[in-house]
Structures are given as C-alpha cells and as structure tokens.
C-alpha cells in the first residue's frame, strides 16, 4: 500500500500567505483574514480538524490538465469524462493543450504562476512535460502507451492504457467461446513476462496457449503456417518485435485468412486488415478512473495501486469477417459489443 504524501501541500500552500505575514504585522494578518474568508476558513479548518481540512482542500483544489493534442478524439473523450467526474469535487480546472503552443516552456511558467495542486497529463507528450516541469507536484497520467518506458517517480500516479491479460482473455472466451487453442507470436526480447502471465491466465480459463517465438534465428515466415495450422484463433499482441512494419502485419493477416483463422487483437487500427475481434480499454472509463484517483490524492487517502489497470473495455466485432471464416460468435454477448461490423 502506498500512502499519498503530496496532497498535504495543498492546505499548506493555500494557508501559507496568511502564515507568512505573521511576524511582520498582526494587523495585516487580521486584514487578510477578514477580506479573505477562504484563507480564514482553511486556516481554522487546518488547525482544528485534519479531516475537514482535507475535504475543504479538495473542494478548493486547482487542477491543471495537460493534453498532448486536444484534436485527438480519444484524448478529448478522456478529458471530458475526467472533468465531468471531478467537477463537483474540485475548485478550478486549467487546460493546457500541448499542440496549440509553439513553446512547451510556456507550461513551466504556467505551473509557476498557477501553482496547481495536481497535474493531470493525457498522452505521452503531456506526461513527459508534466514530469519535466511539475517538480514535486502530484502528477496523474492516462492514455500513455506502455507507461513503463518512462519510469514512475514517487509523485506519479496513473491509469495504464492496456487492459489486464485476465480481462483480455476472459472477453475473448466470452465473445468467441468455441475457440480453445489461442496462438500467439512474440519476440522474447519484448514479451517474455507477458507471455508467462498469459500462460497462467489461459490455464485458469481453460484455454490452451500455443506459442511461437520470433527472432533472428526464427523468422516469422518460417513458422507462421505451422502455427496457424495448430490453432483456433490468432491473438496478436502489441509486440514491436513482431509488428515491425506494415508488410509484416499484412503477411500475418493474409496467412490467417488463408488458414481461415480469425485474428483477435488490441486496436481498431487492425480492422482494416481483417481483424475479427478487437478488445481495447474504454476511453471514458479511463477518465473516470483518473478522476477517482485525483480525488483520493487530494483527500490524502491511501492509494492501493499507484497505476491502475483500465476497468472498462471497448469491443469491436467484425461479424462480416467471422461469417467469411465460418466462425460462430456468442449472440448473448451482443449487448456488450460497442461496434458491430457487417458486410457492406
């Protein structure tokens, strides 16, 4: 369990102006407190009751949202969901769109001037900038692909972009229940840990994971046909060693089609190639999760997981492709499907 050490800064920073005047002039303090009821309230609350102080702090909290690119639909969705959930609990929200400024250094000035209590960064670029200019302020992130590559300082919290393996495989079993043998291609340099975990999860679900490694000694072409002949469905994971370029991706989909095997994967981008099922993290849910995390940080609540797994899923089912492959799907799962692709 990790205890949040940063939200305490809020009450202190807000009360600080009143406290720092004390040695100079008692009349100034009285004047400050009379004309600034917010400071008076917070000062009294802070001295009398830490619990009241925390909730007042949250209600007055200033949150800076740094968005990597506000024109990207997914980023905008996550921001809107975050705002909707956090609004009743926050004071002021400041927006900063990285794409709209030619000088990211402007962010440094904004953080100094506004002194936010929490920074919420959306997308990798925003997260890097928040880490660069945010100092010791709590930084929250989401929509960062493979967040682990940036490391995680102790003042950083977030919602990962990738679903848990348990959820990925459970939903595959839910939508395409007849397919037991799951083929997966991976590069041991990138995905060994993930595959070890997937092996355990598959066993728990009564599925069989058929693995195929790729590398310099084992080119994809050599083993793809052999793998496809032994499986019911190909599970395409985000492995840069496998999905090296467009030609490789096309090769995998063409071979899968020749063997009449559906492809299950993690992004709608593969729909154009002929993926049959895509399960990804639901974007608005990530925004709501980030808002709940922000609330916990500002209230100084204990935080169980500094980086949460996305809780919501978004499912696209290519009914047309499944029909071509003569593969059945679970019609009782249709109310869980977000997008249904029929033949034109």
């Amino acid at each position: 369990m990790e205890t949040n050490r940063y939200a305490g800064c809020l009450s202190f920073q807000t009360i600080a102006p009143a406290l720092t005047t004390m040695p100079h002039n008692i009349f100034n303090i009285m004047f400050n407190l009379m004309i600034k009821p917010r400071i008076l309230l917070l000062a009294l609350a802070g001295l009398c009751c830490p619990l009241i102080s925390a909730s007042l702090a949250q209600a007055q909290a200033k949150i800076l949202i740094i968005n990597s690119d506000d024109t990207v639909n997914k980023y905008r969705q996550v921001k809107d969901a975050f705002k909707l959930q956090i609004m009743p609990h926050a004071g002021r929200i400041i927006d900063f769109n990285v794409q709209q400024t030619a000088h990211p250094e402007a962010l440094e000035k904004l953080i100094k001037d506004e002194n936010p209590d929490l920074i919420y960064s959306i997308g990798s670029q925003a997260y890097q900038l928040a880490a660069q200019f945010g100092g010791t302020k709590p930084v929250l992130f989401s929509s960062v692909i493979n967040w682990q590559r940036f490391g995680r300082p102790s003042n950083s919290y977030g919602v990962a972009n990738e679903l848990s393996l348990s959820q990925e495989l459970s939903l595959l079993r839910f939508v395409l229940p007849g397919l037991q043998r799951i083929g997966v291609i991976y590069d041991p340099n990138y995905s060994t840990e993930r595959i070890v975990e997937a092996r355990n999860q598959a066993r728990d679900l009564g599925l069989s994971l058929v693995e195929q490694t790729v590398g310099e000694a084992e080119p994809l072409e050599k083993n793809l046909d052999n793998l496809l002949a032994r499986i019911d469905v190909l599970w395409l994971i985000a492995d840069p060693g496998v999905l090296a370029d467009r030609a490789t991706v096309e090769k995998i989909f063409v071979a899968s089609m020749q063997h009449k095997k559906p492809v299950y994967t993690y992004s709608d981008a593969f729909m154009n190639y002929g993926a049959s099922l895509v399960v990804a993290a639901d974007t608005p849910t990530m925004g709501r999760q980030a808002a709940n995390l922000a609330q916990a940080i500002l209230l100084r609540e204990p935080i169980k997981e500094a980086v949460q797994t996305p809780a919501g899923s978004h499912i696209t089912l290519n009914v047309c492709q499944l029909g071509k492959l003569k593969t059945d799907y679970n019609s009782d799962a249709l109310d869980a499907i977000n997008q249904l692709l029929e033949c034109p």
Partner: protein
Amino acid sequence: MTFNRPDVPQRWRASTVTVLLALLLLVRTAPAGTTETIFFYNPESSVDNFAALKTEFDDYLSGQGAYSFQPFSERSTFESMLAGNAQGVYLLSSWHYRQLNAKTPLEAMLVGVAKGELQQRKILSSKDLSNISALPGSTIAGAGSEDYLRSQLQQMLGAEYEGLLPKIKLLSVPKDLDALMAVGFGVATAAISSESSLNKLAIINPKQHAQLKTLASGEKSFLLIAAIAKPQKDKEASLLKVIESMQAQPAGEKNLKMLGLDGWKRTDTLDASLSKQLRLP
C-alpha cells in the same frame, strides 16, 4: 447558421438562409408525418453502441414499414422528447419507467424477456470485504449512470447503512462484466451487477467468480420496458406489433440480443402480481 464570406452580398446571404430554412422544413416535415419512431434510453448500461443500434434497428425496421430507431445517450434529451409528446414507442429501463411515471404518464405495453426471465436482481459482490459495514472508503464499480448506481446501492444498503453512501466512490464502467472483473484485479473493491452477469462470469472465468462473495442484493425489477405515452393512441399498435414479433425473425432476434433480450411479453398477459408491480409509483 453563420456566413462569414465578405464576397457574398448581404441580401444574397439573407435569401440563401431563407431558402435553406424552407428546404430544411420540407425535409423535416415530409417523413415526420409518416414515420414512427422507437426512442431508446437505458441508464443501466454504459456500452457506447448507439451507432451500431441505430444502424441495425433502422435496417431491420425499414423492412417492416415507415419506422425508425432513435437511441439517446443523455437522459435529459430523452425526457425532453417524451415531454414533447413525440409520437412513438419508448424503450426504457424499469427503474427509469417508475421514475418517469410520476411526471409523465406512460403505459407499459411490453416487458423484455431474457433466458425465460422477465425480471432481474442486482447483486453487490466483493472479493476482500466480508460485510457491508466495511464499505467506507471503497470504490464500487457498476454499469450505468451514476444516478442509477447510487439508487441501486441505496436500496441494497437500506436505512441501516444509508449513512455509508457519501463515503463510497462509484466507478461507472460500460458493462457488468467489466465491473466484476475490476474487482478481480483490484481497481474496485466491490461491484454492482445483475445475477445473470455473475452467472456469465462463472462460465468465462470460474476462478474469478469463485473469489466473489455476495454482500447485498436488491429487489427484483423488470428488464427493458416498451411503453407509450398516455393517453393511449391506436396509432402505435402497428409499431408495437413489429417490436413484439422481432424474435420471430433472425435479424430481429439479433437486434433484441443487442439490447440483452430474447423476446417480449405483453403486459396484458402478465400475472396479477407482476402487473401490480408495473403500476407501483
């Protein structure tokens, strides 16, 4: 409508706007007189499948007559449509139906059926907590709007534990299975889901299902309801017939599955005890 073209003379701009408005009115009034609509809003699910529903239902309904389907993501927009006495059939959750009936009189004509059941019960399940009193500080995941989830939780907690509500965070997720799995991997402490979703989890992930304990359960409530605005109009009878017979055709059956249903049952064929529940305030 705005014009910012300096090269277009003012009088042309005014006349163009008038012509466009007239065309718009013509386009709107032509089908409105003949097309009947199914209006759909369900606060018990957050699956953003409105585009798929619209496409599939319009496709199916167009083969049955001059009908269309209009899903809503916002409760207020749906209720405005109803308050404006728009002609058609309203598909809504029984929870919403009971709330709406207080201000806009509706008549339930059909109730949804799934796996032979007309009603469902919501369950509060947890992996780590053993009783309700341990809920303060926890996050509860569930599908649907926050209003809906809060009211379900309030009903489950009862008067004795009502005071715990402000100490609980809610996380709205797209579907019941997401909520249940979120408990499995620790993002939520507990989940609100239907009994049938718990049964689905038992099939797809028995290990996770075995870890869950029931903390509380709610009262039984009807699945989706097809209603018309009072006073009853005969005009909706043909559209109701189309909805009722959807299960008889493969395409209609598929569309019903997208709503989580297998079919419909007419309310005038319900047992007296069930009919009484529909009339409760």
